[in-house]
C-alpha cells in the first residue's frame, strides 16, 4: 500500500465533511471521520508489519524550485522506523479520540465541522512525520498549527452565541473572545518558532545545497562544513521545535490552548502535535550529533521547561490546565532526552506520554461532561462514586505519569533520568525534582477530583456512555502495559523498543553499572511515591485546594504578563507609531503639495478671469523673447 494513502484518507474525509456537510446528518460525520483515521491506521499497521531495514522512500511530484541537490525538490514520503512509529501513534490514538468525540461532541451544533478539522489535523500530522524533506515537513508543521488554530477557536463565539438571554449571551461573548484570543496566540507564537525553522532550512541549504532529508543524511557526515554553521542551523531548528512543543520561552500558548474542546486537547495538545518538536530533533539527529553546543541547549531548554511546567501546575484550579502544564513539563523531559542524544528514550517517553496523557485528558473530559461543563477542581471531588469506570482509567493514568513501577511512565522516565545522570548530573537533579513535583500535582489532581466528598453543583453526575468508555479502556490498558515494550537489561528485558528504533536512529548506549541503575531506579520510584504520599497527606489535611507557591504558580510564574509587557505592548505601540508615520509620509507629501500649491495660489490670482490680464501676460512673454532676440542680434551683429 503506497504511503500517500496515509494522509489521503483523512484528507478525503476532511474534504467531504467541509464541502458537503449536508450529506452527513446526525452522527454520520463522526463515523466517517473515525473511519478514515481507522483506514489510515490499517495502512500504517500494514506498512509497519511489512517494514524492512531499508527505509521506504516514495516520491510523488516536483514541488519546490532548486531545493534538492542540483534539482527541483519533489514532494515525497519517507518511512523508517521513527516515522512508522509516529504514524502508528497518530492514527491509533487519533482513532480512539475520534470515537470518543462521536459521543463527546454529539450535541454540538458544529459536529460535522469538528470532525472535518480533526481529520485535517490527522492528515497534516501524518504529512509532518512522513515527509521526506524539510519543506514538506513544514507543510505538515504549519498545517497542524492551522488545525490547532481552528480547533482551539472552535467555539469562537462562545457556546451560547445564539442565546436570547442577555447574561448567558454576555458570558458566551466573553468566552468567544477568550477562545479566539487563545487560538490566535497559539498561531502567532507558533509562527515565531516557524521562522526559526525556516531560517534553519535556509542555512542548511546554504551549507549543503539540499533540503531533502535522505540526501542531507547522506551528505552531512562527510561534508567539510564549519561546526559553527551546523550549530547555528541546529539552534534555528531548536527555535522551531520550541514553538511547536510549547517549550520555554514560547510556552504560554499551550495552557491557553485548553480553550478548545477536550478531545482536541487530548489529541493535539498532548499526544501528537506538541511532540512534533521532539520528532523534528530526532529526525535531525545526524545534525545534532555534530552539534554538541546546540544539543546542550536542547537539553537545558527541556530541563528548565520541565521545571517551569511542574511549578506552574502546582496550584492550578482548572482540571485541564493542570494537565496542560503537566504536558509542558513532560515535553521538557522529552527535550532533555533528545538533547542528551538519548533519542530512543525521548521517543519512548513520547509514546507512553501519548497514551497516559490522552487518557488523562479524556477522563477529564468525561468528568467535565458529567458535571455540565464545570472545570474547576474545587467544585468536584468524590467523582469515584459516580463514575467508577472512568475513575479506574484515570487512576491508571496518574500512576503512569507518576512513574510508579510496572506502569509505562516508570520505564520511559527512568530511561531519561539514566541518560541525564550519565551526561549531566545537574540536569539529573532537575529531572528528579520534577518527577517528585509531577507525582505531587498529579496526586493533587487525583484527590481533588476523585476522592473526598462531592462539592459539585450537578445533583447526580452520570457515568460516561459506552462510546467514551471503550477508548478510555484501551488507553488505560496501553498506559499500564506500554512500558513493557522497552524493559531495560538490568530488569531482565531486551530493550525491544531501543532495538527497533535503533535500526533508524543510532542508539548511544550508556554503560552504567547495574548497581547504579538500581539506585537510580529506586530514587525515581521514591520521588514518584513520595510525591503521591505528599499529596495524600495534604488531602488528609484538606489543604490540597491551595497548592504550594500560591499566586506565583497560578499565574504560571507571570510569564504571560512579562511577554505582554516586553513584546506585545511595545510591538503594538510600534505598529501604532508606524501607522501614524505612514499617514505622516502622506502628511509630509500633502505639506509639500500645499507648499507647491502656494505659488499655485499666486498663479490662480493671476488667473483672475480678466481677459486683459491674460493678454498682458502673453504680451510680456512675447516682448521678453523678442527683446532678448533683438538685444542678441544687436550685440552679435555689431
Amino acid at each position, binding site marked *: 500500500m503506497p504511503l500517500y494513502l496515509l494522509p489521503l484518507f483523512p484528507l478525503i474525509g476532511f474534504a467531504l465533511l467541509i464541502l458537503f456537510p449536508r450529506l452527513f446528518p446526525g452522527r454520520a460525520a463522526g463515523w466517517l471521520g473515525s473511519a478514515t483515521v481507522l483506514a489510515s491506521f490499517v495502512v500504517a499497521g500494514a506498512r509497519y508489519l511489512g517494514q524492512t531495514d531499508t527505509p521506504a522512500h516514495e516520491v510523488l511530484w516536483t514541488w519546490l524550485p532548486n531545493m534538492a541537490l542540483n534539482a527541483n525538490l519533489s514532494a515525497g514520503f519517507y518511512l523508517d522506523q521513527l516515522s512508522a512509529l509516529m504514524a502508528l501513534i497518530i492514527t491509533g490514538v487519533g482513532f480512539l479520540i475520534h470515537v470518543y468525540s462521536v459521543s463527546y461532541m454529539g450535541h454540538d451544533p458544529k459536529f460535522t465541522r469538528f470532525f472535518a478539522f480533526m481529520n485535517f489535523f490527522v492528515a497534516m500530522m501524518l504529512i509532518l512525520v512522513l515527509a521526506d524533506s524539510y519543506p514538506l515537513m513544514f507543510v505538515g508543521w504549519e498545517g497542524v498549527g492551522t488545525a490547532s488554530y481552528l480547533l482551539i477557536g472552535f467555539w469562537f463565539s462562545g457556546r451560547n452565541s445564539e442565546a436570547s438571554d442577555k447574561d448567558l449571551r454576555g458570558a458566551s461573548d466573553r468566552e468567544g473572545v477568550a477562545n479566539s484570543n487563545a487560538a490566535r496566540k497559539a498561531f502567532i507564537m507558533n509562527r515565531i518558532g516557524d521562522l526559526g525553522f525556516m531560517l534553519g532550512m535556509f542555512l542548511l541549504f546554504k551549507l549543503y545545497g539540499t533540503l531533502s532529508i535522505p540526501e542531507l543524511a547522506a551528505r552531512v557526515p562527510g561534508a567539510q562544513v564549519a561546526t559553527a554553521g551546523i550549530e547555528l542551523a541546529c539552534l534555528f531548528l531548536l527555535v522551531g521545535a520550541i514553538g511547536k512543543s510549547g517549550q520555554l520561552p514560547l510556552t504560554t500558548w499551550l495552557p491557553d490552548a485548553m480553550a478548545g474542546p477536550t478531545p482536541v486537547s487530548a489529541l493535539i495538545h498532548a499526544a501528537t502535535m506538541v511532540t512534533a518538536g521532539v520528532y523534528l530533533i530526532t529526525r535531525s539527529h545526524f545534525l545534532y550529533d555534530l552539534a554538541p553546543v546546540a544539543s546542550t541547549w536542547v537539553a537545558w531548554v527541556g530541563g528548565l521547561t520541565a521545571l517551569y511546567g511542574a511549578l506552574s501546575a502546582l496550584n492550578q484550579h482548572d482540571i485541564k490546565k493542570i494537565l496542560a502544564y503537566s504536558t509542558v513539563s513532560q515535553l521538557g523531559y522529552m527535550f532533555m532526552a533528545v538533547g542528551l542524544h538519548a533519542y530512543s528514550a525521548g521517543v519512548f517517553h513520547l509514546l507512553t506520554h501519548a497514551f497516559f496523557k490522552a487518557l488523562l485528558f479524556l477522563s477529564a473530559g468525561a468528568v467535565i461532561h458529567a458535571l455540565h461543563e464545570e472545570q474547576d477542581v474545587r467544585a468536584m471531588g468524590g467523582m469515584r462514586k459516580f463514575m467508577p469506570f472512568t475513575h479506574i482509567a484515570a487512576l491508571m493514568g496518574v500512576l503512569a505519569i507518576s512513574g510508579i513501577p510496572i506502569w509505562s511512565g516508570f520505564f520511559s522516565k527512568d530511561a531519561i533520568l539514566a541518560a541525564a545522570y550519565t551526561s549531566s548530573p545537574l540536569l539529573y537533579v532537575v529531572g528528579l525534582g520534577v518527577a517528585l513535583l509531577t507525582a505531587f500535582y498529579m496526586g493533587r489532581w487525583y484527590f481533588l477530583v476523585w476522592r473526598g466528598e462531592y462539592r459539585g453543583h450537578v445533583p447526580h453526575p452520570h457515568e460516561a456512555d459506552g462510546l467514551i468508555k471503550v477508548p478510555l479502556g484501551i488507553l488505560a490498558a496501553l498506559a499500564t502495559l506500554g512500558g513493557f515494550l522497552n524493559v531495560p537489561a538490568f530488569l531482565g528485558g531486551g530493550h525491544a523498543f531501543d532495538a527497533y528504533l535503533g535500526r533508524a536512529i543510532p542508539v548511544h548506549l550508556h554503560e552504567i553499572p547495574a548497581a547504579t541503575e538500581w539506585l537510580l531506579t529506586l530514587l525515581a520510584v521514591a520521588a514518584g511515591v513520595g510525591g503521591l504520599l505528599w499529596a495524600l497527606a495534604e488531602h488528609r489535611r484538606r489543604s490540597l485546594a491551595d497548592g504550594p507557591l500560591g499566586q506565583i504558580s497560578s499565574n504560571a510564574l507571570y510569564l504571560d504578563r512579562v511577554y505582554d509587557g516586553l513584546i506585545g505592548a511595545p510591538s503594538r505601540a510600534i505598529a501604532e507609531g508606524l501607522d501614524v508615520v505612514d499617514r505622516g509620509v502622506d502628511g509630509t507629501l500633502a505639506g509639500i503639495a500645499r507648499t507647491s500649491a502656494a505659488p499655485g495660489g499666486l*498663479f*490662480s490670482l493671476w*488667473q*483672475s*478671469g*480678466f*481677459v*486683459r490680464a491674460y*493678454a*498682458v501676460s502673453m504680451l510680456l512673454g512675447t516682448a521678453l523673447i523678442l527683446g532678448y532676440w533683438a538685444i542678441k542680434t544687436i550685440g552679435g551683429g555689431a
Partner: protein
Amino acid sequence: MAPTAYYIALSGLLFAIGMIGVLTRRTAIMVFLSVELMLNAANLALVAFARAWGDLTAQTAVFIVMTLAAAEVAIGLAIIVSIFRKRETTNVDDLAGLKG
C-alpha cells in the same frame, strides 16, 4: 522702392499699437478693432516678404487671413451682441467667468 525692412518695422509698430489697444481698452468692440489692427500688421509683413522673395504663397496666406478676419468679425460681433443682451455691458472686465 522702399526696402522690406521699412515695411517690417512699420508692421511691428502697427502691431504694438494694436496690442496696446487690446490691453488698455475695456469695451469689447474697441478690443475688437485693435485686434483688426494687429491682423493688418501681420498682413503687411506677409505681403512685404512676398515681394522680397517673389513668392505668391504669402499673398495667398494674406487672402486667407482676410477671409478668416471676416468670419471672426461675424462671429465675434454676434457674441458681443448676445452678451450685451444678457449683461447689458460690453466691458470685458465684467466678463470674468473664467476665473481660475
